[in-house]
C-alpha cells in the first residue's frame, strides 16, 4: 500500500479530515506548522477500540506489522485531552529538542513519549489541541512504547551510521564550518541554553558547534576528528565502503601516532603527512582484515631475541598513561610568556665608567668604616661584579681596536 493511500484510509477511519503532513515528503517544518497548526484530530474512537480486535479503521492490516514497526509518521493537531502521558519510562530531565510533543498513536490511544511539558504548557495557556509529531503503530504494547521512549534519546532518528561514515562526515562538516563565513553562533542551536559560551576562537567554536549539534561530548567529537586526521578524502571513502569499525580506527591510531611523531620530526608538510598516513592505512587495513590486529610500527626494528633469559621475574612495565577526569573544573586563562625583555643597549665606555665609579665608592666606604668583617664581605661581594666589569672592558677594548 502506498503511503498516500494509508493516509487517506486513516482519515476516513476517524471520520474527519485530519490535516497531516507526511514527513517523508520533506519540506521545511515551519511551513508544515503554518498550514496545519489550527486544526485538530479527534481520536476518541480509537481509544474505545479493544487492543486484540482487528482495526476498524482500515489504518493498516495489523497482522502484516510487528510491534516495532512504525507504519506512518505525521505532524498532527491532537486534542490535548486524548493524549496520555506514558510514564513507564520516566520523563527525561532535559526538555526535548523537538519543537512538538512526540506521540505514539496506537489502536489504544495517543501516548506522549517525549515533550509532555509542551502539552502541559499548551493546556495551561488554554489551548484544546496541540501539534504533535505522531508515530503510527499498528499494534499496542507497553513494552514497545517503553522501547520507543528510551530509544528516542539513544538511537538517532535516521538510523545508525557506520563508524567510518560518522568519522568522514564529522570531518567534512568541520571543514565546511571552518571555511564558512557565517557566524558560528547561528549554528549552535540550544548551546547558549546549556551555558556553552563561544570564545574568540573559531577552531574551538567549531568543535563546540559539532559537539552540541551532534549530541556528543567534546572529547568524543575530538576522537572522531582524530580518527579522520591525516586521511585523504579517498581514503575516508574507502574506509566507508569497507565499513570499517571503531576498533580498526583505534588500533590504527596507535600506529598513526608513532608515524606522526616520525613524520613531524622530519618536518613533513601536512600534505605529505596525509599522503603517507593514507598510504599506510591501506596496509594496516589489510592486516586488520586478516587477523583483527595491527602490528606496532616499531616492531619492524625489533632485533632477534638475545641470548638466555636472565631473570625469572615477572612484571612487564606498563606505560603509565594518566587518565582524564581528575581535571579541575575551574576555568583558567592561558597567559603564555610571549615577549622577551628588550635587549640591553650596547655597552659603552660611559656606562662602564659609571659602574666602576659606583663600585669604587662602595669599596671605599667599607675601607673608611674600618670594620674588618664588613670590608671582607664587601670585597667578596664586589669581586664578581668587578670581574664582569673587567670582561666588559676587554670587550669594549676589542671593539675599539677594531674601529681603529
Amino acid at each position: 500500500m502506498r503511503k498516500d493511500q494509508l493516509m487517506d484510509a486513516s482519515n476516513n477511519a476517524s471520520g474527519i479530515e485530519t490535516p497531516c503532513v507526511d514527513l517523508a515528503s520533506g519540506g521545511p517544518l515551519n511551513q508544515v506548522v503554518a498550514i496545519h497548526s489550527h486544526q485538530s484530530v479527534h481520536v476518541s474512537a480509537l481509544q474505545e477500540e479493544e487492543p486484540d480486535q482487528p482495526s476498524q479503521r482500515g489504518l493498516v492490516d495489523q497482522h502484516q506489522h510487528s510491534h516495532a514497526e512504525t507504519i506512518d509518521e505525521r505532524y498532527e493537531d491532537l486534542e490535548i485531552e486524548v493524549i496520555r502521558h506514558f510514564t513507564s519510562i520516566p520523563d527525561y530531565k532535559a526538555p526535548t529538542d523537538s519543537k512538538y510533543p512526540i506521540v505514539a498513536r496506537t489502536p489504544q490511544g495517543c501516548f506522549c513519549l517525549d515533550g509532555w511539558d509542551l502539552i502541559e504548557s499548551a493546556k495551561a495557556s488554554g489551548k484544546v489541541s496541540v501539534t504533535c509529531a505522531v508515530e503510527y503503530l499498528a499494534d499496542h504494547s507497553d513494552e514497545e512504547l517503553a522501547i520507543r521512549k528510551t530509544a528516542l534519546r539513544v538511537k538517532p532518528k535516521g538510523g545508525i551510521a557506520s563508524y567510518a561514515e560518522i568519522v568522514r562526515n564529522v570531518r567534512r562538516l568541520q571543514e565546511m564550518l571552518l571555511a564558512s563565513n557565517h557566524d558560528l553562533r547561528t549554528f549552535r542551536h540550544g548551546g547558549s541554553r546549556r551555558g556553552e559560551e563561544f570564545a574568540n576562537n573559531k577552531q574551538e567554536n567549531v568543535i563546540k558547534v559539532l559537539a552540541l549539534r551532534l549530541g556528543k561530548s567534546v572529547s568524543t567529537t575530538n576522537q572522531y576528528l582524530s580518527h579522520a586526521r591525516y586521511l585523504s578524502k579517498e581514503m575516508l571513502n574507502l574506509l566507508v565502503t569497507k565499513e570499517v569499525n571503531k576498533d580498526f580506527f583505534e588500533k590504527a591510531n596507535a600506529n598513526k601516532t608513532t608515524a606522526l611523531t616520525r613524520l613531524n620530526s622530519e618536518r613533513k608538510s601536512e600534505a605529505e603527512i596525509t599522503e603517507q598516513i593514507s598510504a599506510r592505512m591501506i596496509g594496516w587495513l589489510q592486516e586488520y582484515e586478516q587477523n583483527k590486529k595491527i602490528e606496532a610500527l616499531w616492531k619492524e626494528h625489533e632485533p632477534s631475541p638475545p641470548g638466555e633469559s636472565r631473570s625469572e621475574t615477572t612484571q612487564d612495565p606498563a606505560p603509565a598513561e594518566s587518565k582524564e577526569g581528575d581535571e579541575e573544573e575551574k576555568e583558567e586563562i592561558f597567559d603564555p610568556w610571549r615577549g622577551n625583555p628588550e635587549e640591553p643597549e650596547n655597552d659603552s665606555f660611559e656606562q662602564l665608567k659609571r659602574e666602576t665609579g659606583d663600585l669604587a665608592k662602595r669599596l671605599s666606604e667599607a675601607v673608611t668604616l674600618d670594620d674588618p668583617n664588613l670590608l671582607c664581605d664587601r670585597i667578596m661581594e664586589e669581586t664578581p661584579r668587578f670581574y664582569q666589569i673587567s670582561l666588559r672592558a676587554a670587550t669594549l677594548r676589542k671593539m675599539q681596536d677594531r674601529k681603529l
Partner: protein
Amino acid sequence: MGKLVIFCAGTDIGILPAKKVTSILVNPFDNAMNQKAIRETLAMFAYAGTENRFLDSGGYQIYKAEEQGKVMTFDPNSPLIESEDRINISPNHVVETACQLHPQMMTALDFPVRKLKDKTEREKEFLSKLGFNIKWATEASLLRARHCPQVQLFLPIQCYDLDQFELFKRSIGDISYDGFSTPLRNMELDEIALLLVRFYQLGTKKVHLLGSTSFFVIVLSAFFARHLFDWISLDATSWRLAAEKAQAYFNPFDLSPENLKDNVLIDESIRMICQCPFCENRTFTYIKTLPYTDKLALLRSHNFYVIEKAGEDLYENASDLLRFEKFLRRRSPRIKDINNLIRCLSIIDIYKKEDINVLKQLLRTDT
C-alpha cells in the same frame, strides 16, 4: 670545550618523543625486567637511532621503595624484583643489565639519601646509607672491569654537603671509574655549582646530573660543559610527566610550563612562537583541542624537543659570561635568578682552582 648531552628518560618504544632520539636513559626495572622488556628496549634503541645509551642503576626505585615502606633486599642470587611490596636489586643485576643492553655509560647502584632539611637528620641519613654506597660503588667497579670494561662507569654521589662527599671519596679509595653522577633533589643551584667545581678540582672529566632538566640546571650545565668538563649530561622525565599529569606545554624560551588543559581559554590572537616540528604552523587551539592521546603525544614531543634545543642554544651561547648573560636575559624573565647565577659563574670562573672553602665562602652556600 666539552659536550652537553640531555638524555630522554622515562620513555619506552610507544611514547618516544621523536623519530630520532639520540640519547636515552634506561634502568633495570623499567627496561630489563625480563626478556620481553630487553627486546623492546633494544628495539627502541634501534628504532630511535640512539647513539648515547645510559643505564641508570635503579637507585630512584630504591628511593621510592623506601618511601613506600617496601621490603628491600639486595641479594645478587635472587632475581631482580620490583613488586607492590618488595624490591630486590644488587650491583650484579645492574652490571648484568649492562651486558644485555650494551649502554655506553652506566651508573653504579646507589642507596639515595632522602630529602631532609634538618642538619642532624641529614647527617644520620648520610651515614646510614654510606656503607651501602661505598660497598656498591666498589663492587660495581670490580664487576664492570670483569664483565663490561667498555662501559663507562659513573659513581653516584649521595650526600648533602661537601664534607660528606669528601668522606665518600676517601672511603672508596682508588677504585676505577669514569665520572660522577649526582642527584639534584637535595641541592640548590649554587650548591650544585660548588660540587661541580669540586669534581673539577679532583680531576673528574665527566659528570651526569640525575633527574632534572629545569632551565637553570641546563644553564649551569652548559657553562660547566663549555668551560670545565669533557662531558656533562642530564636526564629527566619532565617532558613526559608534565604532558601527562598537567597537559603542560613547555615554553620554548625558558621551559616554564603552560597549562593547555581543556578548560583553559585561548585567544585566537595568541601567536605560536615555537618553531619545533610538532608546533610549527599550528595554533595553541589546535593543540588544546586535540583528543587526549594525540594531545599528550604532541606535548611530549614538543616538550622534549624544546628541552634539547634549550641545551643546544645555551651551550652555544655559554662561550663567555657576557654573551651568556645577554642570551639568558632574552630567554628568561627571571632577572634576579639570572643575576645570581652570573655572579656565581663569575666567582667560579675566577676561583675555580682555589681552595674550595674559599669558593664556598664567596658563594655563600651552606654546603
